[in-house]
Each structure stands twice: as C-alpha cells, then as structure tokens.
C-alpha cells in the first residue's frame, strides 16, 4: 500500500509538471481501485459505478491544484471519491448533509472494521482457546511476548509456540473456507 502510494504520488508529481504520459498513467492506475471503491458501496450497479469513476477522474484532473505534494496521494484521491459518492447519494434523494461527511466516512470505516472484527472473532473461535487468546494479546492488542506471558500466566516460550501454531491453524481455516 505504502509502496503503491509512492508510485502514484510520483506519477501525480510528474503530471503536475505537465508530463501527460505520467498523468494518463496515473488516471489509468486509478481506474481499478476506484471501481472497487464504488462497487463495494453501491452494490453492483455497474453503470453508476462507471459514472462515478469517470466523475472522480475528471475531478482528479480538473482540481489537481488542490493536491498538497507534501501529503499522501491516496488520502487525497480517497477524499475526492468519498465526496463524489456522497454527492451521488444526495442527488438520488438520500438526505445526507454534506457536512456530515467526515462522520459518514468514519461510519464506513467503522462498518468495515467491525465486519472485519466479526470475521476475525468467528475464525478465532475455531482454533484452540489458548492459541486464540495468545493471538488476541500479541497480534491484535499488540502486547509484547513478555507482557502476554504475564497476562495469560504462561511461559514466554509457550506464548511463542502458541502464536505460531495459532497462525498456522488460522491460515489453514482460511484456506479451507476459500475452497
């Protein structure tokens, strides 16, 4: 992601100096992430998705003076796409005052995060309890091995082994559920 942002930012900066090849490459590189962004939120109405993608590209192009080269490129594009999405909602009659946008965006982020958390909980329920609690402590809460060992009342090497086995078991579950 970080790497991707650097690449897009480099294209953007070249585009700002008038390099039309870089600018075209940037707009093409945005197509797929923007389609994904709008499709997830509009639920598969492909015409609408493509309309919004194009409106966003036009805005990225016409309003590129509003990009601050010191800041991440992804956040800027994301803010534009979000604005276009909410503008679309509003035009289609949903009453979403524009000034609620940051909150609404947080709601999006929150909904996604809580979906992800629910998925994670379901997965962690399928592996042994000790491994699950070690993973929660070290990978989700971010405790160190020593802190986790103290919290759970087990040895540090036990924490390491359980984390390792737990991750392996989770990977196996995810692989199974994909097939």
């Amino acid at each position, binding site marked *: 992601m970080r790497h991707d942002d650097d690449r897009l930012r480099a294209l953007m900066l070249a*585009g*700002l*100096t*008038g*390099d*039309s090849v870089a*600018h*075209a490459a940037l*707009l*093409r590189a945005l*197509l797929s992430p923007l389609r994904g962004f709008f499709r997830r939120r509009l639920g598969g109405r492909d015409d609408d998705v*493509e309309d919004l*993608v*194009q409106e966003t*590209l*036009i*805005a990225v*192009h*016409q*309003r*590129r*003076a*509003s*990009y*601050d*080269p010191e*800041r991440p490129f992804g*956040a*800027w594009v*994301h*803010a*534009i796409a*979000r*604005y276009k999405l909410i*503008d679309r909602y509003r035009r289609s009659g949903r009453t979403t*005052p*524009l*000034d609620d*946008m*940051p909150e609404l965006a947080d709601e999006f982020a929150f909904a996604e995060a809580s979906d992800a958390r629910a998925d994670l909980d379901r997965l962690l329920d399928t592996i042994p309890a000790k491994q699950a609690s070690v993973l929660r402590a070290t990978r989700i809460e971010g405790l160190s091995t020593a802190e986790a060992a103290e919290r759970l009342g087990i040895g540090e090497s036990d924490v390491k082994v359980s984390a390792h086995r737990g991750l392996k078991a989770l990977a196996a579950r995810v692989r199974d559920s994909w097939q």
Partner: protein
Amino acid sequence: MNSDDLIASLTRDLRPVPRHALGRRLGLGMVLGGLVTLAVVGGGLGFRPDLALAMHGATFWIKWAYTISLAVCATAATLRLARPDGIVGGWLRLMVVPVLCLAMIAVAELAVTPRGQWLALWLGHSWTMCSRNVLLLSVPIFAGLLWSFRRLAPTRLALAGTSAGMAAGAWGATLYCLHCPETSALFVLTWYTLGMAGAALVGRLLGPRLLRW
C-alpha cells in the same frame, strides 16, 4: 464515453500546475475581488479625507489590526478547506482572540467615557450604514473566491462557504476602513463584526449550492 477515451481526452494538451497553485489561485481570486471593492470604496464611497492624518493615529491601526487579523485567520481556514482532505485546525477558533482584544479596548474606552456619551460612542455617526456597507463590500471578494474554488476541491461545503464568507467580509471591512471615519472600539466591535458575521452567514447559506462540484 468509455473511461479510456475520457482519460485520453483529459490528458491531451496537459497544462502544468505551478507549485503552490492553490494559494496562488485563492490569492488571485481575493485580489481581483479586492480591487473591485477598493474601486467601490475609492470611487463610490470616497476615501476619508483625513486618511493620511488618521494613519498616524492609533485608532486607525487598531481597526486594521482587528479586521486584518480576522481576515488572516479566515483566509488560512479557507486555504485548508479548499483541499478535499483539509483539516481546518484552530484557525476559525483563533478568531476569538482579536474579538476579545478589541472587547477589552472597548471596555477601557467605556471606563474613561462619561456614561452620558456611551450611546454616542456605540452608534457613532454611521451605525445604520456600517454593517450593510461591510456586507456589500464583501460581495466582490466572495465572488473572487467562488472563482478560485472552481479549480479546488472543498468537501465540507457549508464550512468552506462560512470561512470564505468570513474572509471576504474581513477583507471587505479592511478596505472599508479607508472610508469609515469612526474611531471608537465599541463601534467597530459591534457594527464591523455584525457586517463580517453577516458575510460569513451568507457564505454558509450559499456554500452548499455554489461550491458544489
């Protein structure tokens, strides 16, 4: 149109964007609007005849310090709100500081003025026109800002409109000082502030309509 054709048409004849384009664009909009306002103050209302003399006195500079500091805060907030991912920071709240400073000066002024003259201090000679003039003088500057915003990307339209209205009002008031001979801090605190707040309110109401993109 398919998206590839769109990209081809957008990138044909690509013009470079200079560094600090956002600041330049907003600055240009305000300066162009400000020139119109200045022309109205100079040509329509007339500069105050004692302007050169007044510029040697403190009251003129107190008025300017008040309107210019408000204008700087509102302009800084507007610059930030012109970016889609912009954060206003404390600029709008910072405007409380000049208001409080002028309020303290007004209190000091009242303290040394006999009670019977307080009303005259407050209303001056032009209280019926002052707020309205400030509001009207803000219009060209606000229009200039609207032009600037056509290449920028505000996403919080009501807030961006408020901030742009306030900037236009405060710069308009700054230029109005070149005409207005009133000297009391209480007068400025009331009638200038009312005019600037009116401009901010107009910006708030118009922002969601006129700044959409």
